[in-house]
């Protein structure tokens, strides 16, 4: 049991909004970053709001992710931190991305009160076109309150096992809150406890691990097993990769929305990889022909070697793909493999370095041995 604020509200989203309003009104934070409804047909965007009245349209738990907020928060604070305290409402995977970016020296977390919630997942952005989510929303909120997984979510959401946030200052116990009748905001850090101090509402104790969380974890685990046990490619190997990325138009949106891909200049945008007449010359000497422009697969495979250990599986890449390549599923699967290799959970522990920035002297001894028989 942890110290908690017990809120009475009409559903988890309203409770989250009330919490942000109370925090802003109390003067404990100067601003709030959260999802805000910006259009009549369920359009939502992240906004940094400084006025409690403007939070009327805030909808922190709206099941869409227009951008990974961890990445957004990094862009806001990469040069310097906020001067005054700001609260940010992030989903668990956004928070994990934020923590990863911290390890890569891309954020200043000083003065940020991190608020998260146990997460019911989000729908693909496409599902929200022309108000398409309106019909699904009531069922979504109900599934969230009951701890059932909603249907039609992003594939990586349906198979997400980290829907209970790591290391947020405050966590709203949204999943499975229906049975409890009251919504609990649990303080998980001293900063969170400080934020709750003196706020209106019955102070009490609560547990994040509700029955709903347990039942959802079971469902997600089963979905994950089903999704991840399937081979990532229809045909393993190069042939399968070519088929998978065959319709890639090379827009690199997957990378630009990826919270982990934070390099100022990506290797694949550098002059090194710019095709020159010589590139084609080399290709044509060795091969029957080549794609123009070349190196589609190199881009995707290269990105896997650069960021898969830190992939939080948020699913932004697949949502941003204009030709509907399920990039996120492939990257999450490869990421699961590489993360297991280094026994690493991205975004779990801010003190743990990214695997490719550290090493143990006595590990992986078989790599580098003469093994040519396999």
């Amino acid at each position, binding site marked *: 049991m942890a110290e908690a604020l017990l809120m009475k509200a009409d559903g988890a989203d309203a409770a989250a909004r009330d919490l942000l309003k109370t925090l802003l009104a109390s003067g404990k934070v100067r601003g709030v970053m959260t999802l805000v409804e910006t259009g009549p047909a369920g359009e939502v965007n992240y906004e940094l709001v400084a006025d409690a009245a403007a939070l009327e349209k805030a909808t922190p738990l709206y099941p869409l992710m227009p951008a990974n907020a961890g990445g957004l928060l990094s862009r806001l604070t990469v040069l310097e931190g906020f001067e005054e305290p700001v609260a940010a409402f992030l989903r668990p995977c956004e928070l994990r991305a934020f923590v990863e970016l911290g390890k890569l020296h891309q954020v200043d977390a000083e003065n940020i009160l991190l608020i998260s919630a146990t997460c019911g997942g989000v729908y693909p952005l496409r599902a929200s076109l022309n108000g398409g989510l309106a019909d699904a929303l009531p069922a979504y909120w109900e599934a969230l309150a009951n701890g059932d997984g909603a249907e039609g979510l992003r594939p990586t959401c349906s198979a997400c096992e980290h829907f209970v946030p790591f290391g947020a200052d405050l966590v709203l116990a949204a999943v499975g809150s229906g049975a409890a009748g009251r919504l609990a905001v649990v303080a998980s850090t001293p900063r969170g406890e400080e934020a709750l101090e003196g706020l209106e509402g019955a102070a009490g104790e609560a547990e994040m691990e509700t029955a709903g969380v347990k039942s959802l974890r079971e469902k997600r685990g089963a979905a994950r097993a089903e999704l991840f046990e399937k*081979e*990532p*490619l229809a*045909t*393993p*190997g*190069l*042939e*399968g*990769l*070519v088929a998978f990325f*065959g319709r890639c138009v090379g827009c690199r949106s997957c990378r630009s929305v990826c919270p982990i891909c934070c390099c100022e200049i990506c*290797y694949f945008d550098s002059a090194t990889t710019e095709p020159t007449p010589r590139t084609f010359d*080399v*290709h044509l000497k*060795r*091969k*029957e*022909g*080549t*794609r123009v422009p*070349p*190196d*589609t*697969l*190199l881009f995707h*495979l*290269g990105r*896997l*070697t*650069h960021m*898969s*250990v830190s992939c939080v599986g948020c699913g932004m890449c697949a949502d941003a793909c204009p030709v509907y390549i399920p990039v996120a599923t492939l990257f999450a*699967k*490869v990421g699961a*493999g*590489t993360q297991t*290799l*280094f026994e690493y959970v991205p975004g779990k522990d801010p003190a743990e370095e990214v*695997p*490719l920035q550290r*090493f*143990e*002297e006595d*590990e*992986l*001894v078989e*790599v*580098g*041995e*003469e*093994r*040519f*028989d*396999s």
Partner: protein
Amino acid sequence: MNEEFRPDILGIFCRWCSYSAADLAGVSRLKMPPTTKVVRVMCSSRADPVFALGALLSGADGVLVAGCAPGDCHYKTGNYQTRRRYALVEKIFDTLGLDNRRVKLVWIPASEGPKVKRVITAMTESLREAGPNPARAEMFI
């Protein structure tokens, strides 16, 4: 096994140990298959896996990365970083069903000219078995 097939191997050798060993192998007139074209780098950790992937996708049959033995890195820790990266590549190849015979990392100390011969011969043999890189026949890459 196709005896006619001569694989093309890109070697990325560290300047301090492996390249010196290759030099020694040459000076000692050790005979080995003429399959490996060596690029010298200051440290095996310079060999970003993207270089290996790039070579493979442009049609090389294999990539051989060689560095100082663990503990002997001229820069103290470079080869430990290399080891993590190539363990990662191996894992990615496993997941995607790519042929792990085509990318190898080995440690070759400066004094071990014969090991250069042994490693290049073994890799050549294993790539003969693997056959030509399918990327050569694949236009969309």
